[in-house]
Every structure is written in C-alpha cells, then in structure tokens.
C-alpha cells in the first residue's frame, strides 16, 4: 500500500500528545474537555489503521471505533453539563479556582 502503517500511528501519536498537553496545561475546563476529545480521536485513528492494515476482512476495529465514538459523545454531554453546573454555583470554570476538595 502507498502509505505505510507507521505514518498513521505517528500522526495519531502526535495528535494524542497534543491533546495530552491541552489537558495538562489549559486553565479552562472546556478547553480541557477539548483536549480529551483530541486524545479520543487519536485512539480512533489507531483502531482504524490497525483494522485496515492488519485485519481488513473482519470489522472489529471499526466496531471498536464506533464504541469509542458513542462513549465520547456521552462523556462530552456529561462533562459539559458538569461544567455548566459548576459555572452556575461558583461563577468560574477556571480549574485553578475549583479546589473545594483540597485538604
């Protein structure tokens, strides 16, 4: 095939690391959620790349990617609802200021 498997894996790794940086470094809770979405997308690229290059005759990789998609949708809905709820009670979604559980 024209494109080697490792290219896809390296692009997915780069996307995952960018999302990881977003999760660790951003101060806004919505931006952190965006980083999580980037990481989930990177995982899906890996699932599809392995499906295409290792076992294209079985749809296992695609099925897994669809489950990741469904869980990502559920995660986004609950996460954003939590953020809106926190914003209502604390008037901020800056992660540095949401430290009620700090001992």
């Amino acid at each position, binding site marked *: 095939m024209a494109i080697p*498997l490792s290219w896809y894996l390296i*692009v997915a*790794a780069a*996307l995952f*690391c960018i999302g990881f940086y*977003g999760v660790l470094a951003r101060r806004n809770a919505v931006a952190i959620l965006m980083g999580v979405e980037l990481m989930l997308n990177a995982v*899906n690229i890996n699932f*599809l790349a392995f499906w295409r290059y290792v076992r294209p005759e079985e749809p296992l990789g*695609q099925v897994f990617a669809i489950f990741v998609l469904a869980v990502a949708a559920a995660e986004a809905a609950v996460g954003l609802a939590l953020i809106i*709820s926190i914003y209502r009670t604390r008037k901020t979604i800056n992660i540095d200021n949401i430290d009620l559980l700090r001992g």
Partner: protein
Amino acid sequence: MLQQVIFILMAIFTLGMALGTVTARNLFHAALFLVGTFAGVAVLYVLLEAEFLAVSQVVVYIGAIATLIIFAIMLSRSMMGKEAGAMNKQWLFAAGGSALLFIVLAMLLSKVPFATQVAPVPPDTIEQIGSSFVGVYVIPFEVASVLLLVALIGAIMLARERHG
C-alpha cells in the same frame, strides 16, 4: 504517490489545527480549530477506506460534540480570554512531558515491525458492521445504548436550574 501527498498535507493540516486548539487564547477560536481537527481526522478515515466512520465522525463530532462545546462556551463566556492567560503554571512541564512522550512513541512506532498485509477491504464492510452489532457484539451494543441514555438523563439533571 498522490495518496502520500494527500496524507502528508492532511496530517500537517490536522496537527496544525490541533495545536491551534490547545494554544488559542480565545476559547471560541479554540472550538473552531477543534472543528478543523475533526474534519482533518475524517479525511484520514477516508484515506483508510473507512467511509462509514468518516461520515459518523462528521455527523457526531462536528455536528453534535462541537456544537455542544460551543454552547457550553457561550453559556459560560464571562471569562473568555480576559484572565491572566490560557495556560496554568505547569504548562512548561506539560509541554516537555508531552514532547518526550511523542519522541518515545515515534521512535518505538517507527522501529516495531507490525504483521501488516495488503488485502483489499471487502466491499460489504458496512454490512459486516451492521450484522456484527446485532450478532457477535449485541451485548456491548445494548450496553452502549443504555450508557447513552443514562448520560443524556444525567446531563439534563446536572444542567437543570434548581429553585429553592
């Protein structure tokens, strides 16, 4: 050859958009960069001959999740770009850590030999996906649908305005 050129262009586009997502100071710009990233990933899916997932990516991620994120930004917009900066105190460590993780992963992935094959994709892949959802993977499928229902009800309960 053409495929490789398209792949490299789309990879650069996707990663650039992703970098914009995590570095943009204005949260709304970050959300628009996120939409670009999702579109780039959908093109990568097309290059992998996974058309069903490419369409699902556009419908679910761009159509639903990005819209949801933009709504959340608008509902909590009082701090858009006005405070001291988008990054927290540990951003330098985070950047170093993720760069290190990427270097290690890239070195590993370019060296490990995977048992790849050049078999063509069967023409009835979408049919296979559909029948496996009501066959082999019926229990995970049902669990996923229950999860979505629970998440929906939970999201409504969490975001509801409470009186008294």
